[in-house]
């Protein structure tokens, strides 16, 4: 398992991660969800030993990554966000090298390499130089190099970025298979749908801080049964807020000159009432988007902005 306690990482005055804590269990997929620059990769870097934490504590299978780093790293498999492959070598040679880096030798290494090539769908092109592979194939091999030594803890840093839909589905299946085999998986992404479909437990991070954590059900409960209503048009923020102040059980999440975001129960039924109030305040509505409770709406509720911003 992975235990992260009050982890912080700073670069001079810039705080990349601030007092982040969570715990990932064996056989489960723990997701770190957040926009680009939220601190997900820095957190993975601190767990994998790539970066030294400024403060806090990280343990992998009870081994502290700072004081007992070699044992902690021996338990880890890392699939970095960027490809980490030798383009001149073949898929098999890459897998053999990275398997060897974790102490696999001889027959055990050869068997694992064969199995990973089979699972990643690269067996028939195992002898080709990686530089001839498509982006999706390289992504799958990148994943294979992270699991070839059968790690007990697997860190995946946005492994599906820039990948074709077919390879993405296959990769997510592979991640699920690893967790089903008992591996503790930490998965970072900024794709809501990936996090919702894949992760058993999630932490939402923004600006280096963990702003919510729990299972998908627990996180949805945080939002209640509230819908998210986004109105595009022309608004005067102060007047719009004043016009909606009297409306029952409604929260203005964001009010800008071209967009208004509201959180409320039964938004579909209350549209005429809202439109009338806003019209009286001189607002002009050109587009309406209604979002049912989801991670997306939770993120907006918590941060006041969309995840992809």
């Amino acid at each position, binding site marked *: 398992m992975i235990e992260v306690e009050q982890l912080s990482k700073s*670069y001079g005055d810039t705080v990349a991660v601030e007092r982040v804590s969570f715990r990932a269990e064996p056989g489960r997929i723990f997701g770190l969800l957040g926009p680009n620059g939220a601190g997900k990769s820095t957190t993975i*870097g601190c767990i*994998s*030993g*790539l*970066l030294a934490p400024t403060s806090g504590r990280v343990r992998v299978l009870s081994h502290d990554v700072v004081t007992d780093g*070699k*044992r902690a*790293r*021996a338990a*880890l498999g*890392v699939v*970095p966000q*960027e*490809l*980490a*492959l*030798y*383009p*001149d*070598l073949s898929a098999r*040679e890459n897998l*053999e*090298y*990275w398997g*060897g*880096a*974790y*102490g696999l*030798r001889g027959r055990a290494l050869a068997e694992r390499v064969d199995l990973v090539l089979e699972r990643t769908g690269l067996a028939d092109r195992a002898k080709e*130089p990686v530089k001839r592979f498509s982006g999706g194939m390289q992504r799958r091999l990148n994943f294979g*190099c992270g699991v070839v030594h059968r790690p007990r803890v697997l860190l995946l840093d946005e492994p599906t970025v820039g990948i074709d839909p077919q390879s993405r589905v296959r990769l997510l299946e592979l991640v699920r298979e690893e967790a089903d085999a008992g591996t503790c998986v930490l998965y970072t992404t900024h794709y809501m749908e990936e996090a919702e479909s894949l992760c058993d437990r999630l932490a939402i991070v923004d600006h280096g801080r963990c702003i919510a954590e729990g299972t998908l059900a627990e996180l949805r409960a945080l939002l209640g049964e509230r819908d998210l209503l986004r109105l595009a048009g022309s608004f005067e923020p102060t007047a719009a807020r004043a016009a909606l102040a009297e409306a029952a059980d409604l929260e203005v999440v964001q009010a800008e000159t071209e967009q208004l975001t509201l959180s409320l129960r039964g938004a579909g039924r209350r549209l005429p009432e809202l439109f009338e109030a806003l019209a009286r305040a001189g607002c002009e509505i050109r587009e309406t988007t209604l979002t049912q409770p989801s991670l997306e709406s939770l993120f907006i509720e918590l941060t006041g902005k969309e995840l992809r911003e």
Partner: protein
Amino acid sequence: MVAVGLVLASARKDLRRRLREPLSLLLWLAIPAVIGGLMSSLSGGDEGPRPKARILLVDRDESLLTQFLAGAGEREESPFAFELVNLAAGRERIDAGDASALLVIPDGFTEAVLRERPCELELVTNPAQRILPGMVEEALAILSEATFYLHRVFGDELRELVADSTDGEAAAEFWEDARVADLAAGINRRFRDLDAYLFPPAIGFEAALLPAGADAAPALGFGELFFPGLLFMMLFWLAQGMSADLWQERAAGTLRRAVTTPERTGPLLLGKLLATATITAGLTLAAALLGAVAFDLRLTTMGPGLVWAVACGVVLTLAMYLVQLLATSQRAGNLLGNLIVFPLLMVGGSFFPFQFMPDGMAAIGRRTPNGWALVQLQALLAGRLGGRELAVAAAALAAAGVLLYAIVSRRLRRRFAPGV
């Protein structure tokens, strides 16, 4: 045991990658080979006739003495070759760089020499040449000195000879037997006077045989002079090329992945050095074979020298790794590397052997790291490096290697690979 296996795996991985780009390996060998070939062609190498200083001679005196001087150049072992020309043609040809020097002997030169009177020779040298005109100037200075001492010893006889042979009626009687016999007796008497100083000579010489391994350097052929320097040139190119691989690994993300493995970058770096040593050994052997074919170098005596060259190649690669790690980009790394490599090659005896450099420059060159290593290599190839000196040199090289490894390893893991 895991680490040893990983070092071997890392070395195997780098060798595979290198062997898939054989052109770069060949270039590292080819560049010094081409430079060596060009230098050999330009200088004539060990074969062919020795260069002679071609002297254009304008003989206005046309005496026995000047004919004797011109005739001396016809001897095969003479470093000079005289060609009689008129003044206009001589000036035109020396201006065109067609000879090493133009010597104008004025009318009355022989008489001036015999009478010990002032006389002015005109010597015009070719500024495009350095050594051969210098030899001509030196030779004339020596002749001038010799004339002075000739007069100190045989001055009376010479003056009498020239007076009698050129002075009207006396000249007719000059070649009579009694006159010649009298002159010969006078010269013989002079030699007898000098006998006490010349046999044995008043100045004594003591011959001392320097022990083997000291500064007693035998004459070196072209190959022996140039081969070690060219070998080091190859080692420099190789080290620079191998060190640039760090940027490729960084761009590929493999360095970052290596940091997350249990053994981090240590085995990866050692593997790279092992691969470097293997490639260096292969290329050094190929260079030695080329040297044997082109310059008649003896392969059988090269063994220790080649081992030394391989060890130097590994340490040089470590030094070039450090250069790359100090740079902020691959381009900056290459630029910095070139700024260091080229002056070191020039001063350190790779382009020009120390024997061809001015003494001051050679002294500086021998104190550069590669110059020092080159001196050891030359001594090893010549069989002049004793066991103790070899042990000291090997220890110094090993110490430099260990220090560089420690610095490179730390910087690679902490700053370069994570990119922070």
